[in-house]
């Protein structure tokens, strides 16, 4: 097991190095304009541009630039400076991160709490009216675009504008100060972000459970006299849950990397997703580069966590 983990970590580090190199080369090669000019912003004078060019080392060969960049990140956690926003890239990202973490964590917990039991029960009571109802409802939630769902939620429940004003509305996260206030402002966004995933996870678990419950070892458990509840949970779900774990790791990793942008926009939550969007709008290269790397980092880390969790759950995997 230890060797398995070490192997995975080393591969992760290698992946990060490769991704960073690729990102770096892309941003070096692709910009249609002079990177120094872009970094300087719209209204800079030629001297300023030259100063920036030299300060950023943009006149050095690419591999030297890459080396400097990586040294900055690894040693000082320094992602560079955004002239357009007049701030360190690192500060920009870290400022935004808490909001996204709030959003994603809450939504993940919610979609697990909603989706998993529904998946299990649907599988056990296959073809019953309950099963058919949940399958149809879940399809609806998967198909509904998340921004539409968000707007509908605001329309119905938001303070001030909603038909049934019970939750804080758009922009409430920014004005919230205490933890309970922050949580309150997140309730609608959590549900909106969780809706599609809950539906997906319910269907996924249902299908996984249906496969698992027809396995021979389930028959053995029943033949041993194990009560049906234990058969379902300790034998069935225990096996069926492993692909869900993989899915969860990937979903959370990707969301933290900025994929919650639509929800963040609808509810005006200043998260990483919004940062990605605005930096692309403004062609703010250092920031784009920074969030891409950050995102890759999250995804690789979560992949690693998922691999390790999988080996923990499935002992057959441990020797690879």
């Amino acid at each position, binding site marked *: 097991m230890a*060797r398995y983990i*070490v*192997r995975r970590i*080393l*591969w992760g580090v290698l992946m990060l190095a490769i991704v960073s190199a690729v990102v770096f080369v892309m941003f070096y090669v692709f910009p249609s304009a002079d990177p120094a000019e872009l970094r300087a912003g719209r209204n800079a004078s030629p001297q300023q541009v030259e100063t920036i060019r030299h300060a950023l080392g943009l006149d050095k060969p690419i591999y030297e630039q890459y080396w400097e960049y990586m040294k900055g990140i690894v040693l000082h956690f320094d992602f560079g400076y955004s002239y357009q926003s007049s701030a360190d890239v690192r500060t920009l990202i870290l400022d935004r991160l808490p909001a996204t973490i709030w959003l994603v964590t809450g939504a993940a917990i919610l979609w697990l709490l909603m989706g998993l039991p529904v998946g299990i029960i649907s599988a056990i009571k296959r073809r019953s009216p309950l099963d058919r109802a949940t399958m149809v409802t879940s399809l609806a939630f998967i198909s509904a675009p998340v921004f539409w769902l968000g707007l509908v939620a605001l329309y119905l429940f938001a303070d001030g504008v909603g038909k049934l004003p019970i939750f804080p509305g758009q922009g409430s996260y920014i004005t919230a100060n205490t933890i309970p206030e922050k949580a309150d402002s997140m309730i609608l966004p959590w549900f909106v972000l969780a809706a599609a995933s809950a539906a997906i996870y319910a269907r996924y678990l249902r299908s996984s459970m249906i496969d698992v419950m027809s396995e021979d070892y389930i028959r053995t458990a029943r033949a041993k006299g194990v009560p049906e509840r234990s058969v379902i949970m300790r034998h069935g779900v225990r096996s069926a849950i492993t692909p869900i774990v993989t899915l969860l790791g990937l979903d959370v990793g990707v969301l933290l990397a900025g994929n919650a942008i639509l929800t963040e926009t609808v509810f005006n939550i200043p998260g990483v997703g919004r940062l990605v969007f605005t930096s692309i709008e403004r062609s703010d290269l250092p920031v784009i580069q920074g969030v891409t790397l950050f995102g890759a980092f999250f995804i690789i880390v979560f992949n690693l966590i998922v691999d390790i969790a999988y080996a923990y759950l499935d002992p057959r995997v441990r*020797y690879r």
Partner: protein
Amino acid sequence: MTDALPRAATDGLRANGEGGLLEIRDLVKHFPIKSGVIIDREIGRVRAVDGVSLAVKEGETLGLVGESGSGKSTLCRTVLQLTPPTSGSVRFEGQELVGRSAQSMRPLRREMQMIFQDPYASLNPRQRVGQIIGTPLRIHGLASGEGLKRQVNELLERVGLGPEHYNRFPHEFSGGQRQRIGIARALALRPKLIIADEPVSALDVSIQAQIINLLEDLQREFKLTYVFVAHDLGVIRHVSDRIAVMYLGKIVEVGPAEEVYANPIHPYTLSLLSALPIPDPRANAEREQIVLEGDIPSPANPPAACRFHTRCPYATEICSEEEPALLDYGHGHWAACHHPLHREHPEAVSEALPGLSREPA
């Protein structure tokens, strides 16, 4: 079987059959086991086939017997070059197969075909029966259109199915019928050699007899040579002219079928015969069954010297030190053992299978 001093096999090949349709010489197939932290290094090998020499005469049925890990299935696949051997030579009608390019193998593939064990896994579920049987003919450019259809229908009839089955899918058939489809497919190219890898093991007993009889009829009609792999000793004896017994990648005994069953030389052969449950209560009660202790060792880690010594009831010190060579005991009967049964434990043989008449040693 003579009692004279056995001649060593200088050439395991001539040992069991003069140069025939198929000549396998020192065939080795190892599967590397890789592991490592960053780079995979080979930490071991699964010695699936570890130096097998065998010859198959034209028109005969060679039975290949062995349990899990014996290498019999790997041997079949390696012989047909479905997987490249690690080393060794395979000659078909004198032509070397090992090392050939896919291109040059192609025409030879028409002469050698395979029937597989699992009738549920070996037919493409998305193809119709007519397609399954006709594809080989089409690929080799032997027939097309109406002529193709006609040939396929002929084959269907020959294996006991009918033209009404042409357009059906595999899942509409039972196990025995699927196996017939597999046989028709193998016959399509009129091969000289058919390797049947446990063709009846997955079938019910009453269907097994049908398929075995069919295979025998087809052998006569199409002048086929069979290599028949099975773990059921009763079936093997019924169909085979000669039998080779494999254990952990090596041949431990080979000879004419009746000989091997009546006068086994190698203790493993004896224990296989002894372990076989006979559908006859009296005969069972009379037997002195040899029940081997322990598990079959893994081919990744075979015992030293004689591979069977860890489970052999007659093993002595020499068995763990020196690997016995395949020696000729006369009449085409060869075995690799330091303590051949007919000389050292003749009573064990008569106790295992009392029903068979035995020649005096």
